[in-house]
């Protein structure tokens, strides 16, 4: 598609429920990132995929968080047994290049989706 698509846009969960957030990156984009943005804060890194390989998951806050990208395109972020502190906007971003950052060129700039806003009651 033309951009990064995320669904659902809004999710309300009761504490203890499991949730799954989906990201459709731009077709052909090699790199995919998940970020968490709490209210009034900047996006914080969660995890990074290069194709189907999860190369960095150092930002996942606990073992309740799990991400996958089995075929190197669509990615799912799953949060088990949600807690109130999980309430945030979850942003997905993709880029054409295979390296994580790199010089600013069209290939390396991250394109973000609109995010999935999770509210845990």
């Amino acid at each position, binding site marked *: 598609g033309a951009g990064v698509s995320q669904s659902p846009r809004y999710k309300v969960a009761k504490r203890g429920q499991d949730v799954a957030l989906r990201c459709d990156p731009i077709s052909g984009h090699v790199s995919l990132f998940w970020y968490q943005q709490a209210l009034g804060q900047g996006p914080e890194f969660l995890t990074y995929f290069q194709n189907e390989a999860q190369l960095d998951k150092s930002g996942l806050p606990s073992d309740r968080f799990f991400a996958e990208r089995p075929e190197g395109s669509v990615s799912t972020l799953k949060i088990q047994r949600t807690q109130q502190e999980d309430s945030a906007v979850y942003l997905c971003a993709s880029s054409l290049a295979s390296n*994580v*950052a*790199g010089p600013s060129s069209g290939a390396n700039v991250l394109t*973000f989706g609109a995010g999935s806003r999770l509210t845990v009651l």
Partner: protein
Amino acid sequence: DQQVKQNSPSLSVQEGRISILNCDYTNSMFDYFLWYKKYPAEGPTFLISISSIKDKNEDGRFTVFLNKSAKHLSLHIVPSQPGDSAVYFCAAATYTDKLIFGTGTRLQVFP
């Protein structure tokens, strides 16, 4: 330990004047700095970037300045327009690591 800091949560500027948004960082290993702009209910969109080997990069009304000795960068918008009203995030990275974002500055441009 916040490696990228935006100490001004908000800024209000009159249309036509200059907007200056500031960002400080602590990691001298950063190679690469970017500014992203975010409207409500949308994802951040890339605005402008600068490599650590440069001290200035200009793109139309937007100019980013980098002062490595002070570990400081700034974004200048001239002239400011009402459509520039948004949250601006500064971000930084090394060439082999992920982007680290600041907390953002909300810019409001009034007529």
